[in-house]
């Protein structure tokens, strides 16, 4: 009987252990090692490196103009991408929440960008912005927004909007899918009761739809913000951070430091700062959420 009980007690661990072990070995142990790199002089291909340097990397970082520039760009990139993805995703979810003929097909088509590999989204949009093969510069000129058809991605003042547009295109479906799911879980009789009581569409949206969506919105926005702040692929592919670092965000800056300068120590220090900022952001959002929940 005790043997049987031991087996029963161990059972949940048998299901979860393989996944946990793999995650520990491939992600957590390297994460801890990566954190220690931030305090060491680690250069790949340089056998003399490896010394403990204490806080040197962080001191260097405070004086690094490229770091501060990348931090500012990270905020622009993240806020603009999340806001546009969320706003357009919400509109799309509301449109798809109605029953109309052909809805399944429309849903398939508008969600398609989500299946496109990120490297291909990046390349595809880079080509669209390219005046040689892409139509966008010519359209912008026809609209009077550009004097001559030029590549948006090589304009240091506006280049960051190229990857942002690609990111919005790619990310709308994610918000639309999750918000649509939440919308469909709202009981229809609440709307009917409100309509009988004389509530107009806007009132019903504000008093029923929004409060019902709020928990889903909070959690998806939190997750997406963190994820997008860490998402370097589109920028690495479309602009490599250029021209003149004008599109460099922290994630792509880490990538450049690690891959082009092979300076993993400094790259890890920047990554540590990014991680700390994201953790602080997540903690703030969670605290705000529990405050709001308590007030309700």
């Amino acid at each position, binding site marked *: 009987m005790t043997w049987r009980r031991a087996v029963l007690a161990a*059972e949940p661990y048998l299901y979860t252990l393989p996944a946990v072990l793999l995650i520990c070995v*491939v*992600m957590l142990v390297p994460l801890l090692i990566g954190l220690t790199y931030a305090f060491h002089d680690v250069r790949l291909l340089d056998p003399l490196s490896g010394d403990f340097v204490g806080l040197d990397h962080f001191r260097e970082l405070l004086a690094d103009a490229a770091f501060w520039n990348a931090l500012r760009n990270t905020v622009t990139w993240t806020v603009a991408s999340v806001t546009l993805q969320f706003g357009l995703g919400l509109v799309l979810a509301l*449109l798809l929440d109605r029953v*109309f003929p052909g809805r399944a097909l429309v849903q398939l088509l508008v969600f398609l960008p989500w299946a496109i590999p990120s490297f291909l989204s990046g390349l595809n949009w880079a*080509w669209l912005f390219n005046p040689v093969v892409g139509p966008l510069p010519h359209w912008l000129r026809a609209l009077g927004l550009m004097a001559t058809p030029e590549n948006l991605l090589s304009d240091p003042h506006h280049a960051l909007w190229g990857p942002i547009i690609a990111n919005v295109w790619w990310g709308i479906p994610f918000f639309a899918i999750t918000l649509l799911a939440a919308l469909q879980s709202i009981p229809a009789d609440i709307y009917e009761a409100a309509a009988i009581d004389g509530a107009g569409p806007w009132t019903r949206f504000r008093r029923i739809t929004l409060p019902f969506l709020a928990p889903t919105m909070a959690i998806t926005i939190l997750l997406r913000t963190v994820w997008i702040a860490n998402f370097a692929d589109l920028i690495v592919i479309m602009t490599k951070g250029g021209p003149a670092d004008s599109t460099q965000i*922290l994630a792509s800056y880490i990538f450049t430091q690690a891959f082009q300068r092979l300076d993993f120590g400094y*790259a890890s220090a920047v990554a540590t700062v990014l991680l700390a900022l994201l953790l602080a952001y997540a903690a703030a959002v969670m605290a705000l959420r529990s405050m709001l929940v308590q007030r309700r």
Partner: protein
Amino acid sequence: MFIGHHRSGYWALHYLLLIAFVLFALFPLFWLLKVSLTPNDLLYSEGVRLWPSRATFDHYASVISHTQFPLFFRNSIIVSTTTAACSTLLAAAAGYGFSRFQFRGKYWIVGLMLVTQMFPLVMIVAPIFRLLKPLGLTNSLTGLVIVYTAFNVPFASFLMQSFFDAIPKDLEEAAMLDGANRFAAFWRIIVPLTLPGLAATLGFVFTAAWSELLFALMLNSSNAASTFPVGLLAFVSKFSVDFGQMMAAGVLALLPVCLFFVFIQRHLVQGLTAGAVKG
């Protein structure tokens, strides 16, 4: 559902907006296809035309016969399929554990999995490289499969958990009363019911593995073990003038994920539905 006062006006706007969304979603892909079919001599002269006056499959023919893309394609298929299978298997087990049991340390395990979704993955490139190198797992497809499986298991586990949560516990309890052990109950009752969930998870992980670029770039430098994204990026930086061939290769890279997407799309929405409802 609320019904507006001006029904026809509302629906006109509704369809107009939907058409705008569909055009925005499809236009970039349409353009990719268009340039991949445009013969080189018309590429510049008919640059902004919506469809070339003459279409050709030449770019596809030369991509398939004169480049290494067939090899990259094969590598990507192997890596993505194996990763999808391994991740889904591990995630199904873990998701089942989360869904059906309360156990000591569960809170910590879930927290640990959430942490893995938070940090910049670039941070662990170097440690992973140093970990895999002595084991002979760099420049190897196996190394990529191990790394990708670990990356995808946390999210896949949460996804699977939401599918299991949607299945009433009574079903397997009834089976167990009839004398089946839990594993048999899992295999014969739960797994068939979660097939849509398994399909969605497979598709999700397959797409993620098919798209991954940074680790593939860093861990596998040899052509023999390059995946499609790495090959395409190398091609772009080397032959950046050959737009027709680049876009033909791009369309080829799209095919498997789009096929997968069309098949699993409904299940995926359903799966995220379950996840989102839980919030």
